[in-house]
């Protein structure tokens, strides 16, 4: 790295992902516009990881997003958490290939990025495809579900969470890592002063480039109905409650 490291974190602003299913509605196959906009949850883990690396290695940290200008105030939270710079490519495609091509353009413009971090998956499309696609477009190594990163002898030592445990990996060169959540990268809450300072930081806006979409047509988006009717058990006598529960579970052959 030659003592200087530039980290880019990809962040996406999404409709409130904590809206319960019962209150959720669509308009034109997308979440209704009345929901609060916020940073995706894994994206915040990625930003936190980026800020920690910045602090550890005196790196510089740029946030890159593809989306709407209206979301700039939300993206400024990443600056308040510790990033220096924000680049927004303005566009509104949901196609993974189009998004990746535009993020590539922004990264190419920066020129000197050593490491690109992204959330494991966005909190609206639930897809986990954009970062891997981007990595290949950039000709870089992609590693998903990364929990820890260390810079070591000009390369990277990485922990990856798997279905059965974790793996320690090592590689030299530039990479794109998708970040999963662990207790150590729960996002920090920025100080009020940092939030005010972030409001003054310039945002670089870049126009979208033309690129090919994938051969996928969206036919419909629907909200599935949850038709479970819950039978509430009385709790006056806890001993009776649990006996009733076990009897019912056995009667209906669930247990």
């Amino acid at each position: 790295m030659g003592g200087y490291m530039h980290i880019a974190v990809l962040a996406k602003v999404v409709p409130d992902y904590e809206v319960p299913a019962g209150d959720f509605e669509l308009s034109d196959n997308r979440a209704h516009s009345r929901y609060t906009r916020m940073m995706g949850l894994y994206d915040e883990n990625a930003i936190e990881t980026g800020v920690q690396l910045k602090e550890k290695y005196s790196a510089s940290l740029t946030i890159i997003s593809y989306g709407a200008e209206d979301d700039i105030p939300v993206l400024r939270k990443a600056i308040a958490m510790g990033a220096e710079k924000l680049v927004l490519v303005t566009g509104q495609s949901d196609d993974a290939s189009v998004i990746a091509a535009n993020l590539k353009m922004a990264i190419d413009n920066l020129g000197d990025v050593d490491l690109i971090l992204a959330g494991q998956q966005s909190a609206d499309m639930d897809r986990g495809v954009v970062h891997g696609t981007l990595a290949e477009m950039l000709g870089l190594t992609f590693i998903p579900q990364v929990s820890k990163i260390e810079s070591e002898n000009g390369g990277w030592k990485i922990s990856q969470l798997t279905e059965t445990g974790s793996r320690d990996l090592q590689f030299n060169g530039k990479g794109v890592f998708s970040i999963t959540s662990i207790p150590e990268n729960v996002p920090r809450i920025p100080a009020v002063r940092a939030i005010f300072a972030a409001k003054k930081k310039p945002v670089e806006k870049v126009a979208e480039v033309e690129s090919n979409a994938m051969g996928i047509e969206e036919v419909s988006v629907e909200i599935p109905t949850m038709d479970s009717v819950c039978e509430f058990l009385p709790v006056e006598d806890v001993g009776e409650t649990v006996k009733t529960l076990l009897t019912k579970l056995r009667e209906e052959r669930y247990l």
Partner: protein
Amino acid sequence: MKTLIVEIIEPKRLGELVTVSKEFCDTPDIVALGAGDVPGVYNKAWQTEETISANLVPAIAELIQKEEYQVVLFSASTVGAGLAGPVAAKLSASVVSEVIGIEPDLVVRRPMYGGKAVATYKITATPAILTIRRKYFEPAELEGTTAAETLTIAEPLVSLIAEKQEKSEGVPLEDAEVVVSGGRGMGGPDNFSMLQEMAEILKGAVGASRGAVDEGWAAPTLQIGQTGKIVAPGVYFAVGISGASQHLAGIANAKCVVAINKDEEANIFKRARFGIIADYKKIMPALNNVLREE
């Protein structure tokens, strides 16, 4: 349609992908990852012990191109997530991840908005790469084995230094018929022992919500939900779990959900078959007492 499965040698995962492949062809081809025999019958089989996705991307993309596969199936797993995007970009292929439903003519369904919505897509260009969400398709029984040719991998970019298996006692979470799961409402790591006790008596397994994992109360391998494990037990006990849609996405196929929660407004009661509105600290010891006496 000419179909390729790429998966770690693990009968259930392979079985699910074989089931899915029947939507597209009679007998698929396979790239089996890992050592040992390749279970099941395939037209053509390749094998490599390499399981790091970054190292597999070039060889798999080349094979898809050379053999002209129209459909490529991965599990929605660490390996599948590492392969899907890069392989798709290399081949300008279409990719749909986390598929939960398949209809004729390359129409596929997948969740959106943390499982609150389901989108249906028609794939109009091949090759199409699909990652299949676990536990949504019944695994096919794999009889016999297929002799495999070695898949040649170029000089690996990423090297494996160490692999740590999270130690799990008893039944694996994804195979358990009873899952006892704890969330943020547990309030701390200590009381997970109550869940463990119940799981042991019922020969089940302990799970956790993302909230409990983020707090460090449970190992990440125990996380259930759209970005954790997908389970489909007979009974799922949700203890102190609010029931965010991202969590419910992991238990969509659980036959019976029992919710124990202090908050009667908790979303989990909308998914539950039986609900107990109470402090779990009262209910769980009582449940364990009765079960132990039996």
